[in-house]
């Protein structure tokens, strides 16, 4: 990566651009717990992407599911010669396959909602910081109102108003999240705005759009990366909670939360695996993302650099 970049770009640019990235990478790997988190996260993402390839069974294909096999404990033999390593649910679905597919949906919903919220938050936060005045007051007042209520409450009310469905759940998650980004990017942009390079850009008579997107935005990004990483985990947890309450994704696309909810009624009769293993997958996902975010925060924080 390094030598190739040196061939193409002038030497001065390489030292400017490549070294901070390389420094961040080397700082990141200095913490063994963070590496473990990253490795776990990579494994989870890989499992989610490769779900159709590695799952012993397609949990949506009714032809492959036999109701006779329902609620089998982990390790039971499957009729096709395989083994239900994590047991089966009330429909006779292999839990391991259901978890792989559920991970897919949970991660996709978490990432999509975070990206959309990030874009909205960046746009509003930057606009507030750059233009100031009434616009800033209006945006920040809305942010304040929203952040004074717990996210679960806002999401629930939105679902109650909008109705249920995948798009609506994502809308609710985006609504809950954007305020965090708007607030973070605004405070970062307010600091950056007063710096000399922005003044210089003004003196060059660059257009506001160019100043905001080419100069202000890149310098506000580091804190946003941290917030966005944490928020992916929060979004996944919130989606799971909504699904568990029966107000999330439709039953045709079972996310981890729905799998857990599905096993809830069997928990009392001792059939723990239907709820336990999806919960474990959810937990590992959230913890690994948080570990990575924690280390990113230390690495990207200029105050902690020596």
């Amino acid at each position: 990566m390094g030598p190739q970049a040196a061939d193409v770009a002038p030497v001065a640019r390489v030292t400017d651009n490549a070294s901070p990235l390389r420094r961040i990478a080397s700082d990141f790997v200095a913490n063994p717990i963070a590496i473990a988190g990253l490795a776990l996260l990579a494994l989870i993402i890989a499992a989610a992407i490769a779900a159709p390839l590695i799952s012993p069974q397609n949990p949506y294909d009714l032809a492959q599911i036999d109701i006779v096999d329902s609620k089998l404990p982990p390790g039971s033999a499957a009729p096709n010669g395989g083994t239900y390593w994590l047991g089966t649910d009330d429909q006779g679905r292999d839990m391991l396959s259901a978890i792989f597919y559920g991970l897919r949906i949970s991660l996709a919903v978490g990432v999509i909602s975070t990206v959309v919220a990030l874009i909205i938050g960046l746009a509003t936060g930057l606009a507030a910081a750059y233009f100031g005045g009434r616009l800033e007051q209006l945006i920040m007042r809305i942010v304040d109102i929203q952040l004074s209520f717990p996210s679960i409450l806002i999401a629930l009310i939105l679902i109650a108003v909008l109705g249920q469905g995948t798009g609506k759940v994502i809308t609710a998650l985006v609504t809950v999240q954007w305020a965090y980004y708007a607030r973070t990017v605004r405070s970062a942009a307010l600091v950056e705005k007063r710096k000399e390079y922005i003044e210089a850009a003004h003196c060059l008579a660059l257009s506001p759009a160019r100043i905001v997107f080419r100069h202000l935005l890149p310098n506000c990004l580091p804190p946003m990366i941290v917030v966005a990483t944490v928020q992916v985990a929060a979004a996944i947890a919130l989606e799971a909670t909504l699904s568990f309450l029966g107000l999330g994704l439709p039953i045709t696309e079972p996310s981890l939360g729905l799998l857990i909810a599905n096993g809830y009624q069997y928990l009392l009769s001792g059939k723990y695996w239907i709820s336990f293993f999806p919960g474990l997958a959810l937990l590992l996902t959230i913890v690994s993302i948080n570990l990575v975010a924690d280390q990113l925060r230390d690495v990207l924080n200029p105050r902690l650099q020596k």
Partner: protein
Amino acid sequence: MSLLVFVGVYAVGNPIDILINPQADQEDRERAIAALGLDKTLPMQYLSFLSGVVHGDLGRSFVHATSALGLILERMPATLELAFAAMLIAIVIGIPLGLWAGLRPNGVAGRTIMAGSILGFSLPTFWVGLMLIMVFSVILGWLPSNGRGPTVDVLGIPVSFLSFEGWRHLLLPATNLALFNVALLIRLTRAGAHEALLQDYVKFARAKGLTNVRVIGVHVLRNILIPIVTVIGLQFGALIAFAIVTESVFAWPGMGKLLIDSINLLDRPVIVAYLLVIVTFFIVINLLVDILYSLLDPRVRLSESGT
């Protein structure tokens, strides 16, 4: 603050939900629509709702056919009891552990406590609830997994905490709800204690020859208590909101469970009433915390009287 209420009502006042049983014939349908006031235009409905609010009436539940506000008030003691119990658990566990971790930041215990608090933030509440049920109700069989158990009436309000059986029912949901706040209080107390120990007044107290217990128990604790009390106050609102999840897991008959049931049944007046009640809660809590803050922190009090 009045804006909060307005935004909330406006957001929920907008939609028109279809409530009628799909098997009902056209005549039944129209009669039901008229009875519920859904035949009027939206602004009319909103107006009649507003005039009701002025008279202290938040509408009638579509499903239960009683006053929506009455339904919520009926469920409120259960939720409040749960929230108070959870806060108590969080304070009793969180502050001492946080203090311990703050005093010995590099010790094994301190590190373990901090790692545990990260877990407290990461674990999804509802899954922890399920695991608590699994371990304590199903495997060990020590505690009941759902409901409130027998209640004792105090001034006409049913409460659980006066009977042993009630305590047994309360323990698991309260622990579940407390978990996040235990982690929060640990982090807050640790950060406060960590910072306070480096201050001059602590060195001075030590130099005077005061015992360690007195330095920490009186001087340090008193100073770090201000932000902690603020957060406890503000978190109380969050506890009531998060009780929605815990109540659903443990089938606790509180406001949150009522909300979930109402959303599933599209019982709009109850949803609106719940929202109004909880917004009022948040406003009152914020106000109380502000007052408490000025009482606790002489700097705030003096600067206000000075201007």
